[in-house]
C-alpha cells in the first residue's frame, strides 16, 4: 500500500515535533525515574531472594523434564495409554475431593454467618458507638490478614489433625474477608427504610431486620458464592498442614515423586475448580437476574 499522505515541510514539522517533545518530556522523566527505582528494587530483591539466573538456566531443563515425567506412568508409558492405571485411585481421590468441597462449604457457611453477625456492628451508618465499630473492624482485619493456612497450623495443634481445624481456618478467614465486604454493602444502603422503622418505634434489631437486611441479602449471597469458589482452592491445600481434604495425598505424592499420581490429582483439582467456577457464576447471574426482574 503506497502512502498517499504527503509529509509536512521540514520547518513546520520540526516545530510540531518540538512541541510534542516538550509535552511528553515530563512524563518521560517520571517514567524513567519509576523505572530506575523499580530496577534498583529488583536488584536488591534479587539478592535477598537468592535469585540465580545461571542456576535457573541450568534447571530450566529440569522443569521440562518434570512436566514430561508428570505425563508418564511408572512403566514409562504415556499416561494416556492407560487411563485406568493413571487414575488407579480415583474412588479414593473422589472421596477426598468431596471432603475438600465439604470443608469449603461448611467453612464458607460458618464464615458467612459470622460475617453477617459482625457486619452490622462494623458499619458506621447503623452503629452509633465509635468504639463498637472500631473493635469490630479490627477483629475483621485481623482474621483477614492472617493467612488461613497459618490459622490451620495453629488449629491443628489445638483441635488435632483432621478436617475440623481446616473448616475452622476457612471459616475464620472467610469471616474477615466477607465481613469487610458486607459492611461496605451495608454502608451503601438506602437509609429511608431504616429511618422508617426507627420512626415507627422499632428497636435496633427491628431496624436491622426490616430496614437493612432485605436490601442487602442478594448482594450478600453473591459475595458468599464468590467466596465459596475461593475457599475450594484454599481447602485443596489445607491437607498440606494436616487439616483434611485432598491436599495431604497430593503433598505425599509430590514428596515421594509419584509423578503420575501428582498429575492425576492436579487434573482432578483443576477440573473440579473449573466446574465450581462455572456453577457459581451461573448461580450469581441468576441471582442478579432475579434481582433486576423484581
Amino acid at each position: 500500500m503506497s502512502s498517499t499522505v504527503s509529509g509536512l515541510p521540514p520547518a513546520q514539522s520540526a516545530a510540531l515535533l518540538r512541541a510534542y517533545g516538550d509535552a511528553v518530556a515530563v512524563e518521560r522523566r517520571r517514567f524513567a525515574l519509576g523505572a530506575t527505582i523499580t530496577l534498583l528494587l529488583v536488584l536488591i530483591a534479587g539478592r535477598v531472594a537468592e535469585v540465580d539466573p545461571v542456576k535457573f538456566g541450568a534447571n530450566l531443563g529440569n522443569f521440562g523434564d518434570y512436566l514430561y515425567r508428570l505425563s508418564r506412568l511408572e512403566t514409562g508409558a504415556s499416561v494416556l495409554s492407560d487411563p485406568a492405571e493413571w487414575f488407579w485411585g480415583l474412588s479414593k481421590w473422589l472421596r477426598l475431593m468431596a471432603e475438600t468441597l465439604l470443608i469449603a462449604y461448611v467453612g464458607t457457611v460458618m464464615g458467612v454467618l459470622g460475617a453477617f453477625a459482625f457486619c452490622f456492628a462494623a458499619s458506621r451508618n447503623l452503629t452509633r458507638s465509635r468504639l463498637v465499630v472500631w473493635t469490630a473492624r479490627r477483629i475483621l482485619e485481623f482474621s483477614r490478614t492472617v493467612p488461613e493456612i497459618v490459622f490451620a497450623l495453629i488449629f491443628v495443634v489445638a483441635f488435632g489433625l483432621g478436617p475440623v481445624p481446616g473448616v475452622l481456618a476457612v471459616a475464620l478467614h472467610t469471616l474477615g474477608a466477607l465481613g469487610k465486604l458486607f459492611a461496605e454493602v451495608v454502608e451503601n444502603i438506602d437509609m429511608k427504610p431504616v429511618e422508617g422503622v426507627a420512626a415507627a418505634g422499632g428497636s435496633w434489631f427491628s431496624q436491622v431486620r426490616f430496614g437493612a437486611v432485605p436490601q442487602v441479602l442478594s448482594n450478600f449471597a453473591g459475595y458468599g458464592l464468590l467466596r465459596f469458589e475461593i475457599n475450594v482452592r484454599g481447602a485443596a491445600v489445607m491437607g498440606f498442614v494436616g487439616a483434611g481434604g485432598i491436599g495431604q495425598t497430593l503433598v505425599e505424592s509430590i514428596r515421594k515423586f509419584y509423578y503420575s499420581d501428582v498429575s492425576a490429582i492436579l487434573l482432578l483439582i483443576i477440573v473440579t475448580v473449573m466446574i465450581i467456577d462455572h456453577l457459581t457464576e451461573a448461580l450469581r447471574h441468576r441471582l442478579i437476574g432475579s434481582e433486576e426482574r423484581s
Partner: protein
Amino acid sequence: MTRRSELFDDLSGVRKRHADTHFKGRPLETAKALGIAGLLAGLFVYGLITLEFSLGRIIDGMGGLGLIAGMMLPPSPGTWSKAVVYLHALGETLAIAFLGTLLAAVVAFPLAFFAARNVNGVRIIQFLTRRGFDTIRGVDTLIWALVWINVVGLGPFAGVLAIMCSDIGAFGKLFSEAMEAADRKPVEGITASGGSRVQAVRFGIVPQILPLLASQVLYYIESNTRSATIIGIVGAGGIGLHLSEQIRTLEWQHVSFLILMILVAVAIIDRISSRLRFSIIGPRAV
C-alpha cells in the same frame, strides 16, 4: 394509650380487616425460599457430621486455643539474634512477593495480547490462551511452590517462581480484559492515518492500559505479600518457614511475634501501594 399500643393490642383485628391488601404472603415463593434454605442447612449439618465435628471436640479445642492464646502473650522473639533472623526472613518474604509479581507481569503482558479479542483476531489462539490462563490459575501457589522446589531446590528462589506462576494466569486474564475495555478511537485514528496493526496496538492501546496495569500489579504485590508469608511452610523461603517451625515446636511467644511482624509489614505495604496507586490513576479507581 398511645396509638402504637392500640395497634398492637388489636393486631389480629388489623390483620383481619386488611387481609386483602396486606399479610397475604406469597406461599409459592416462601416455599421455594424455605426449600433452598432447608437444603443448604441440611448440607451444612451433613458436612458437620461427616467431617467429625462434635461438641466435645469443639469445647476441648476452644480450651486448648485459649491456653495457646494465653501462652502467646507477650509476643517476643526470645533473643536479639533471633529477631535479626526473623527480620531477614521478612525481607526475604517481601523480596519474593515483589519479584514474583513483577516477573509474572512481565511474562503475562505479551501473552495477554493473544487473549484479547480486539488485538488478536484468531479465535482459536484466543481460546487456547484463555484456557491456559484458567488452568494456571486453578493451581494454588503452595502447589506451584512444591513443584518448583523439586526443580530448583529449597529456598526463596522456588518461592519467587511459585508466585510468578500462580500470578501469570491472573494477570493474563486481567490484562486482556483491560485491553478489551480500551477505547477504540485512538486505534481507529492510527489505522486511518496509515499505521500498521502493531503501531495501532503500541500507540493506540498500550498507553491507555499502562496506568491500569501498573495499579493492578501494585495491588497484587500487596496481596502476594500475604501469599509469600505462607509458602515458607513447604520450604520455599521467607518467614513462613520460621512460623511453621515455631508452631510445631510450640514456641507460642515467637509465633505471636512473627504474626505481629507479618501484620505490620502487610499494613505498611498496603499503605505504600495504595498511595502509589492513588498517584497513578487518581482517587477514582483505588
